[in-house]
């Protein structure tokens, strides 16, 4: 057992329950995105998009992107709780307690995952059926796997920033800055096949692309060799970023 994991997780849950709005709002944001996209784009154009050589409803194509956007936003919120702990001196105190550094990070990851799964559930079981009158999912395990890897990956991504940068203004600026390419240089909103070469390179260096692709395979595609490879790559990204986050907490600037 990793030292301190359960007591820290309990603390995290208790903090969330004391702060219900902050807990609740990120969850419905994804639903809101879905409905706005659905009503806006779907209603305006009723567009279909070519995916794996078939024409699919744009909303179905987009839903995995919305889920992934939810995951990264939730991960960012978890990161901010680290910044908060540091700002309020709690991190310093916890670092002198018999809890391991990785337990502290794992708790942030666990809370990211908890919310991410709830959010996936909301989008798939409430959002899409309301919009489309039907439940879609081809491979639920691909959706769960991608949510798991994506959650760990993006939560780990924010931790080094949150544990090193002191100024909240600078941090907001930097987080906004890194959000942009992560969201846009990926397969979140459009298929990458027709994208320019350079754009593709950036997109395939971006874990978001893999997260969305695997989610999409789970919603409207299938598990093929390409997806298997993407799972492997996302797995490697996740391990590397997790390691980086543990190291960054060792060198945290109190």
């Amino acid at each position, binding site marked *: 057992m990793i030292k301190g994991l359960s007591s820290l997780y*309990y603390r995290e849950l*208790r903090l969330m329950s*004391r702060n219900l709005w902050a807990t609740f709002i990120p969850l419905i944001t994804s639903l809101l995105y879905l409905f706005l996209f659905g009503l806006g784009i779907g209603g305006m154009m009723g567009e279909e998009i070519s995916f794996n050589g078939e024409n699919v409803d744009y909303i179905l194509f987009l839903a995995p992107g919305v889920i992934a956007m939810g995951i990264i936003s939730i991960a960012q919120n978890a990161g901010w709780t680290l910044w908060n702990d540091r700002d309020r*001196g709690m991190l*310093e*105190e916890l670092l*002198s307690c*018999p809890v391991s550094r990785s337990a502290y990070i794992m708790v942030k990851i666990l809370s990211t995952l908890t919310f991410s799964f709830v959010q996936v559930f909301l989008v798939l079981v409430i959002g899409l059926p309301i919009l489309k009158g039907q439940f879609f999912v081809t491979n639920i395990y691909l959706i769960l796997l991608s949510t798991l890897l994506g959650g760990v990956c993006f939560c780990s991504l924010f931790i080094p920033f949150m544990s090193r940068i002191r100024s909240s203004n600078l941090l907001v600026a930097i987080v906004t800055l890194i959000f942009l390419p992560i969201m846009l240089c990926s397969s979140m909103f459009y298929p990458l096949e027709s994208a320019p070469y350079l754009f593709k390179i950036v997109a395939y260096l971006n874990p978001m692309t893999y997260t969305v692709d695997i989610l999409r395979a789970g919603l409207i595609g299938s598990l093929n060799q390409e997806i298997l490879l993407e799972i492997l790559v996302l797995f490697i990204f996740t391990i590397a970023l997790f390691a980086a986050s543990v190291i960054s907490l060792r060198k945290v600037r109190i």
Partner: protein
Amino acid sequence: MPAIECINLTKRFSDLIAVDHVNFEVEEGEIFGLLGPNGAGKTTTVRMLTTVISPTEGTAIVGGFDIRKRPDKVREKIGVVLQKVALDWWSPVYDNLDTYGRIYNIPKKERKRKIEWLLKEFGLEEKRNETIELLSGGLQRRVQVAKAFIRHPAILFLDEPTLGLDPQSRRKTWDFILDSSKAGQTIVLSTNYMDEAEYLCDRIGIIDHGKIIALDTPESLKSGIGGDDIIEMNVDGNLDSLKFEISKLDYVNGVSGTSNLSVQVNNADETLIELSQYVVKMGGRIRNVSVRKPTLEDVFIKLTGRVIRE
């Protein structure tokens, strides 16, 4: 074996040496004070000893374990009261104490009992369900201090524990510290309150610019400054030349002061009148005179030429 042993403990922040090759030992069961002005390096020393940051050079043995090699073992032996209030801002007082107890795996029953007792002792009973954010600064401090006494670690670090507390809570904290010490706990206390250091500490290390510049019992430190009495004179006249002239007198052990004269003598009863007459003779106009015992402040002034706090 000492409870703590610092071996060339050093911390650099880019080109600033916050703690500079510090060597000292803290005996088991002792209350050890780190006394020094703002920015002296007290908090940085405590942070290294509590394994929150790692030293740039040197190391320390805390509770039998090297802070570099076995920080996990060190963490089990220690407790800390940080200088900065460290609390979950949007949680109630009770939850904060409870969370701390859980982290140390204190069984539920004992945890509850201890928390009730601490709430009572620190006058927080009525505020138990109040969110930390809404408490006054002093009450927040009380919660912070109370946390440390929920358990009884072998070594307790207190970084300016009474900062911002009212006199009554200050007293209460002192009582807790003395009781814990009687129960066998080793305590390291950093402070820039002289009275606190003097009242509580068995030995005091005076720290300035990251270096320990003196280390002894409060009594020995004070007797080291020369003389048992200090005559304070508020004088109009040329202070510098007066200081120079007085320092030549054979019954005067030392003179300091910037706006008044602090003269160290062995026995004020014997020398006060003679000294006053001499000051008048040298052209000084005495506005008032008082005699007092030396304090740690005098020790600090003697060592550094500055006062600890304004």
